[in-house]
């Protein structure tokens, strides 16, 4: 496999974590324009732990996930209500705030005779754990996809449980969910924490893939894309957002065909879908239909 294809495939995998985190919130009826912030928190925290403090990547990833989950929980606590756009606005504001904080964030420590660590707008270089441990790009690709498969399996299993049905119920009609005895706020807070952790995991893997991150990586367009991936792919199954990512990165960004027109095609696709399939390509109806065909 050539480097380009490897890069594209790895990116599809990495952004899938972000798309899945946006998806989880959408299923629970909450729109987030700010998942890039938790992706960024994961990237910075995970990168700092391995590059500056010598943590092994798995441990750093777990810590970064905990931090990402906590951060999103804190955004959710005052803003997740039964109804309304409060949470959407808060995530957007929080994401911009975090991006600015990354720009102001200088944490330089000496590593092997040189200063390393986040350097404001200069970014954060030298996140080299996978090279120091002799992991080839192709192996890393496998690692990313193995983790993605594990997350996906967990989500698909959860979706078939009563919790999964309740989560969907909360998203479809929160008042009705409360009326049948579901603690809507608690479900939403749980989802927020899970979504934050998932985005952070993607961020850790992103930072170690690129070895370099900068605040600009985590701008609003990344959040809008991840939201669109989930909306295009569909809210009927956790496979939906992956379809969205694959369509955008795999088809639009990677083929030269749409070169220069990518955002126009992408935006058009989102607009058309929102009108004709408001819950995406793989919506509940489609998933039920497929399930009935193959069982």
């Amino acid at each position, binding site marked *: 496999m050539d480097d380009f294809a490897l890069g594209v495939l790895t990116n599809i995998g990495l952004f899938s974590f972000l798309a899945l985190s946006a998806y989880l919130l959408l299923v629970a009826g909450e729109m987030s324009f700010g998942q890039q912030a938790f992706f960024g928190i994961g990237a910075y925290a995970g990168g700092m732990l391995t590059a500056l403090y010598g943590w092994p990547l798995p441990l750093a990833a777990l810590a970064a996930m905990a931090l990402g989950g906590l951060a999103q929980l804190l955004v959710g606590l005052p803003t997740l209500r039964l109804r309304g756009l409060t949470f959407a606005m808060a995530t957007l504001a929080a994401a911009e705030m975090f991006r600015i904080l990354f720009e102001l964030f200088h944490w330089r420590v000496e590593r092997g005779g040189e200063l390393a660590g986040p350097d404001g707008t200069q970014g954060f270089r030298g996140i080299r754990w996978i090279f120091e441990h002799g992991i080839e790009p192709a192996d890393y690709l496998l690692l990313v996809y193995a983790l993605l498969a594990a997350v996906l399996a967990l989500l698909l299993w*959860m979706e078939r*449980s*009563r*919790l999964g*049905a*309740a989560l*969907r*119920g909360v998203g*479809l*009609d929160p*008042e*009705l*969910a*409360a*009326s*049948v*005895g*579901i*603690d*809507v706020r608690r479900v939403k807070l749980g989802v927020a924490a899970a979504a934050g952790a998932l985005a952070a995991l993607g961020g850790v893997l992103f930072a170690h893939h690129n070895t370099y991150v900068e605040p600009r990586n985590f701008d609003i367009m990344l959040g809008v894309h991840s939201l669109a991936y989930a909306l295009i792919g569909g809210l*009927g199954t956790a496979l939906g957002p992956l379809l969205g990512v694959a369509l955008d990165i795999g088809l639009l960004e990677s083929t030269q065909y749409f070169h220069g027109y990518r955002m126009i095609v992408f935006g058009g696709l989102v607009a058309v879908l929102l009108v004709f399939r408001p*819950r995406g390509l793989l*919506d*509940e*109806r489609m998933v*039920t239909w497929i399930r*009935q065909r193959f069982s």
Partner: protein
Amino acid sequence: MLELRSLARHFGGVRAVDGLNLTVQDGQIFGLIGPNGSGKSTTVNVIAGLLPPTAGTILFRGEDIGPLPTHRRLRAGIARTFQNIRLFGQLSVWQNLWVAQNSAEDLARRGFFTRWLGGQSGVRDEIARLLEFSGLAHKQNELAANLAFGEQRRLELARALAARPKLLLLDEPAAGMNSEEVGQLRERILSLRGSGVTILLVEHVMELVMGVTDRIAVLNFGQKIAEGTPAEIQAHPAVRKAYLGGEAA
């Protein structure tokens, strides 16, 4: 079972419910009737916790449930159906019943993880029974949105029962039904009598109300204008006046 004391709910200047006193005894089927806009649905919504009251107290089994949020009222034993059918349209019939199993008994019997992440095996029988009761067994894997109107009404009732209610609030369960369906609904409601559930039935279809209730209260402009047995209510001049607009008084 249920006692409303000077209950009020205003929407701006509209006094939808205005100083309502009502007592429903254990095991009763209690009818709540009144002209359009007289405050019946508002009363149900306030009891179920979807709307906070403007004033007054709601006692459920002797306790003030005012501070309880909606989901806790369900767990305490109050389940309801909606005048405008509300189901999780994108969930299957089976799942609609599954997610509604949140009674105090269910909470006590199964641990947190079993309840939310455990499989379907422990609840199959009970859901099968509910599907049987509502005649929806053959539709269990269908999305609720794909059901016919009458089936959706039946699913709503089954869903309310999935919560093992002590008090069941039915908001116009016969609305839009033909007389055959009303007959079936009547049988279903009567079959619940004696199973220990108390019912507050809001209904316009007099054939149903008069046939199943033990006692009826009549609302007009948010206030109770009469209360009594079905026979007393049918003979009550104020009721005839409220319904027929004065000519019959």
